């Protein structure tokens, strides 16, 4: 399950980010008339189509899998998260319809109509993500329902949507999708340029990808700050695990790096920034932050995993932010020329955005353990009573590996084809 979600996130992120890039490129084509923008939009449109299919099948797989692996969770949470999924269904339909129009409509619609047909693809792609995060936000801070004999009653539908976790999480995850996609796309074109294909097409692909990634990366810490404050309020145990914060204290320091030693409740080799955590989590440098010692042992998340994943996410995020800013400074300074070392840096940084995305998701989910619905249902109570879970898992793993391999092959083919046409 975690594995399929991990895969699905990658496809979904691409499905959220690629249409936006495609629209930007086609919009620039409409404004300037330059052909290479349209070429990029076409290529990215095809990539979007491939990704949409894989995203759609992995999403369908997930919706079945939710029932297959977590029947009790679904029976319990279905009524509450249902509305978010129902709306997601509409968003998805719209996206599929307009993607069809966009992909096959190049010759059947006027350029302007065609561009407009792309808008709903990008918007509903983003909204689908936001709505799914809405369901996840409810698992993080469940609200708006009554429970009688283990069955949900009296759902307050709108409370699901007014969940305090939703908006901060949605912004954070949407931005991280744009970061991941922007830098990954830029990396692909940087590699092309390093191999000597230094033409307008590659340069534009690189710059557009970097622009999306850099703008999002610079905005991301603002949303990260809100999420941190939120986690402190709703799930203090998660915050403590992320920070490997063992002892409750006022003016808690923030920890950079370090290896948590759970058995002895201490951290080795970390750098402590005094009062940093208290300030970040509450805005008050002297506030009291609850440590892991405040929580019963069986309600603590995996500290090692959460802490390391959190460090990876933040580290990768800041590295990308610096790279994005550096890229545009260098480009400006050198009047559009890009030194090879910068191309290398972009190429090497290509996977970092996805790394940060996955790491962030691990923090969210692992940090909520042992709960599947925070404070309401434990993960171990939600899992299917069937004993052949292994079969399902093996099947899905095989399916995803197969999809990933085939997809990579085809995307490479797509990049190559364009090269030979040029």
């Amino acid at each position: 399950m975690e594995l399929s979600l991990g895969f699905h996130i990658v496809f979904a992120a691409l499905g959220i980010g690629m249409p936006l890039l495609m629209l930007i490129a086609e919009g620039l084509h409409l404004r300037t008339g330059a052909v290479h923008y349209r070429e990029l939009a076409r290529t990215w449109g095809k990539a979007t189509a491939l990704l949409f299919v894989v995203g759609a099948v992995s999403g369908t797989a997930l919706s079945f899998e939710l029932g297959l692996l977590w029947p009790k969770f679904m029976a319990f949470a279905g009524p509450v998260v249902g509305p978010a999924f129902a709306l997601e269904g509409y968003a998805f339909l719209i996206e599929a319809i307009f993607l069809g129009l966009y992909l096959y409509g190049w010759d059947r619609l006027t350029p302007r109509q065609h561009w407009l047909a792309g808008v709903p693809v990008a918007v509903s792609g983003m909204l689908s993500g936001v709505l799914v995060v809405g369901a996840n936000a409810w698992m993080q801070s469940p609200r708006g329902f009554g429970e009688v004999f283990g069955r949900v009653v009296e759902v307050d539908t709108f409370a699901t949507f007014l969940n305090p976790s939703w908006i901060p999480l949605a912004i954070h995850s949407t931005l991280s999708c744009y970061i991941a996609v922007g830098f990954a796309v830029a990396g692909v074109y940087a590699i092309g340029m390093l191999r000597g294909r230094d033409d307008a097409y590659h340069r534009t692909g690189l710059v557009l990808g970097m622009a999306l990634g850099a703008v999002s990366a610079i905005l991301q810490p603002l949303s990260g700050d809100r999420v941190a404050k939120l986690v402190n309020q709703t799930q203090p145990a998660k915050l403590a695990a992320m920070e490997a914060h063992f002892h409750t204290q006022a003016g808690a320091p923030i920890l950079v790096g370090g290896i948590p030693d759970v058995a002895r409740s201490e951290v080795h080799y970390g750098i402590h920034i005094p009062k940093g955590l208290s300030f970040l989590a509450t805005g008050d440098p002297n506030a009291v932050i609850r440590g892991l010692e405040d929580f019963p042992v069986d309600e603590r998340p995996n500290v090692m995993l959460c802490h390391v994943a959190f460090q990876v996410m933040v580290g990768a995020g800041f590295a990308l932010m610096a790279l994005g800013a550096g890229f545009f400074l260098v480009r400006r300074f050198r009047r559009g020329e890009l030194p090879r070392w910068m191309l290398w840096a972009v190429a090497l940084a290509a996977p970092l955005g996805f790394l940060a995305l996955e790491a962030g998701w691990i923090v969210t989910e692992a940090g909520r353990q042992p709960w599947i619905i925070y404070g309401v249902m434990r993960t171990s109570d939600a899992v299917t009573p069937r004993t052949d879970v292994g079969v399902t898992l093996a099947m899905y793993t095989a399916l995803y590996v197969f999809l990933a391999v085939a997809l990579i092959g085809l995307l490479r083919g797509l990049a190559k084809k364009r090269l030979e046409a040029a």
Partner: protein
Amino acid sequence: MSLADLAAAAGVVAMVAYAVLAGADFGGGVWDLLARGPRKSEQRAAIARAMGPVWEANHVWLIFVVVVFFSAFPLAWAAYATALAAPLRIALLGIALRGVAFVFRAYVPHHQVESRAEDRWGAIFGATSIVTPFMLGACVGAISSGGLHVATDGVVSVTGTPWLTPIALAMGAAGASLCAWLAAVFLTVESEGALQEDFRDKARLAGAVVLLGAAATVPFTRAGAPHLWNGLVGRALPIVIAGTLAGGLAYAAVITRRYRIARLLAAAQVVLVIVGWAVAQHPFLIYPDVTIASAAAPDSTLRFVLWSLPFGLGLVLPSFWLLFRVFKGDASRLT
């Protein structure tokens, strides 16, 4: 009608949309696999042209069905998923591989069409197009025939293998052959000349198979699902008669080359078959233990799902109309 009944009706409407639209796409896969004769590759190209722009939108209706069911009837959904895990997994694998195979085949870069890579995707596409509707039909058979039991505490048990009973297999076969029939009829409208004649032949073949299959299902249904049978010859009888009539007339229209009329009638036939089944099956979601009322989510959730329908469909239906007008319309240009 209670809220839960309305939600179930919404689910059936989505099922109908899925069956008519995506059903034809499944059928397209069947004919891709069975492409024969001198115009083999033209047949495949026509199928790909017809499906290309619309199949993904069509497929999403299934997600819609699933979402309506698990939001409005979470207990029933949990029971389906537990008891029918095997056929649902196969269907799911089929859906996944099929979509991927179709698109990947279209995108195998043309300069490297070592047709073997294309063929491999093609074979996957065709095989999964048969297996998937078969499995979905078998699941419908399983929940109609009383092989699934859900105790009052929600524990699910099965007698034997409910999706491998004669009636489930018959319904599976009916599902797959209806898809092939729909596709062949739809394709006659979207092709010309000799190719059109090819699809007409295929439609005649598939129509005959559907007819034989329907006749063969009768004894299995009487024996395997008496309550469903009573419903079909009872309160659903007018619908069953109308459906049979629509099917017969569609066949006649194919023979006399009135393809547009045939398309309309064949679609009507599939709609009526499903609605007939739903009316006969009412009020059970899983016969005999789970009814619409007993599995329903709280009223507030139902109300939300229902209230979202006019708004959501208000967006979706015009979009669909646009899609079909651009790619399936007579004047296929908007400009």
